[in-house]
């Protein structure tokens, strides 16, 4: 039993039910030849990469079937060629890898991987990532470091001690050692409470996020 796959493009200008009848007619043709239809893939209306017969889109259909003899192929291709409603077709014999690929694709094994990759950022965005760069002394790079260290919001930053922040920073490399996070929890506390005016006055006092040595803690 050889497995074949015929993909064809139906003229999209036909009325909707006629497109379905065209596709059904070819499925019937394959079945009448004693073939076993494995799957009919309805890819739907797609944009063409280049115009065919002055059409810019087409309805794609793909019939995958097993056949004991190849006799059906020539009959099928003759019918497709004579049909004016078919813009293009392609017959491909599937090897064992192709058969496996198509069955995997139907079962959702292929194409799942990009889904899981796209899933993770969605989950991350669910947890509120607040703009930590508002705090004096934190730039976009440090904000990213803190995010990977599990600090995503002002309240989390306010709750963590400056030592804990320092250990997160040291993971980012020696160049982050120069940053002094001693005032960051204090600033984050104001930001979490929404006291923006107070935060701004505090930021004006601070130089590079570090408490000036002359003024003591408020």
């Amino acid at each position, binding site marked *: 039993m050889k497995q074949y796959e015929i*993909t064809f493009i139906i003229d999209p200008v036909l009325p909707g039910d006629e497109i379905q009848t065209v596709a059904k007619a070819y499925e019937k043709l394959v079945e009448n030849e004693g073939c076993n239809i494995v799957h009919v893939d309805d*890819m739907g209306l797609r944009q063409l990469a280049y115009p065919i017969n002055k059409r810019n889109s087409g309805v794609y259909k793909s019939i995958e079937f097993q056949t004991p003899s190849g006799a059906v192929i020539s009959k099928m291709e003759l019918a497709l060629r004579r049909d004016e409603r078919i813009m293009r077709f392609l017959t491909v014999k599937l090897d064992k890898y192709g058969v496996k*690929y198509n069955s995997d694709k139907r079962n959702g094994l292929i194409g799942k991987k990009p889904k899981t990759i796209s899933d993770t950022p969605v989950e991350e965005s669910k947890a509120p990532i607040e703009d930590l760069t508002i705090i004096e002394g934190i730039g976009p790079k440090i904000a990213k470091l803190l995010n990977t260290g599990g600090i995503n919001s002002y309240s989390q930053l306010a709750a963590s001690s400056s030592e804990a922040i320092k250990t997160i920073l040291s993971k980012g490399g020696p160049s982050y050692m120069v940053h002094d996070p001693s005032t960051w929890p204090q600033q984050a506390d104001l930001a979490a409470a929404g006291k923006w005016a107070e935060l701004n006055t505090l930021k004006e006092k601070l130089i590079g996020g570090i408490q000036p040595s002359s003024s003591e803690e408020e």
Partner: protein
Amino acid sequence: MASRDDIKFLSNPNIGKDNKKYCRFKKFGIKHIDYKDPDFLIQFVNPQGKLLPRRITGNSLKYQKKVAVAVKRARHLAMMPYVTDLLK
């Protein structure tokens, strides 16, 4: 204080690294290349829609041939363009 650790890049750190190209089909065990997946095949053509050589993509000969066949089939079915510009 600039310690020794702070002086990072006196020369390009990527020079001398072993960034060898590899055949992704061999490495990840991809046995079949689908001609109905133009988003995947677009990686193997240049912005004009022409096939990229093996020396750029790193494909092994076996899979470069399969990529070429898949791209040509995709072109026939108007899923990829024969000629274009600014494809990528």
